[in-house]
């Protein structure tokens, strides 16, 4: 199945990308998808990351479905 990973802020700058499309097995967790993304973007490994799945905060053990959007970012700093 295909999932989309989005990068924001410091994460986007460090990986020099804003988006990554991955083909992963059904039943893949968010954590596993990010491990796969780290092969493409080693800079991801050095950061403390928060994730959201389909625009909601999610745990890394969330099981992904086809077409899911996983956002990866550091602690927010708006306001």
């Amino acid at each position, binding site marked *: 199945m295909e999932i989309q990973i*989005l990068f*924001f*802020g*410091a994460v*986007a*700058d460090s990986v020099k990308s804003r988006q990554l499309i991955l083909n992963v097995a059904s039943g893949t967790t968010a954590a596993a998808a990010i491990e796969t993304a780290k092969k493409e973007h080693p800079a991801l490994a050095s950061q403390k990351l*928060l994730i*959201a799945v389909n*625009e*909601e*905060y999610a745990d890394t053990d969330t099981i992904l479905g086809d077409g899911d959007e996983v*956002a990866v*970012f*550091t*602690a*927010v*700093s*708006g*306001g």
Partner: protein
Amino acid sequence: MDRIFLCKASSILFVLFILLKNMPTTDFAELTNDPIDLTSVARRVVLPECGATVTLDGYARKYTKDKTTGEVRETDFLVYEAYEPMAIKEMQKLIDRAKSDFGIANVGIVHRLGRLEIGETSVVISVAAPHRKAAFAACEWIIKELKKTVPIWKKEVYAEGEAWVEGEA
């Protein structure tokens, strides 16, 4: 979700102003790339039975103290970036929670994105309530939570470089 909309052009603000003179006020959570006008935000949350609004107004600061070194840096300008659809959802959640937890009438939140010069408004949170006390409490709670949960990031740009500010959550 029908009450949530992004306002991308200042011309929309003018149209809104005309419309709102004859419309019931309501809640809103918006992101904008344009300068934010405090008055127009506060105005839109006022109901005829409310006597007061409390408004929090965040600004792009010139001086920032480094949390680790204590060193004071002088910022040239800021850049705000958001995960836009999620940021709108999270702001709307804050509005819903504030309205169920505090005795307030309406809430408006507008956050600016893109490049902000020093002194420009980054965020406005305006709360209208029949009782002042609830408006103060709700407004203070919303800004505190917004800084923890709404996916928006700030980059400080200095003469010698730039740095994304990492939040505390």
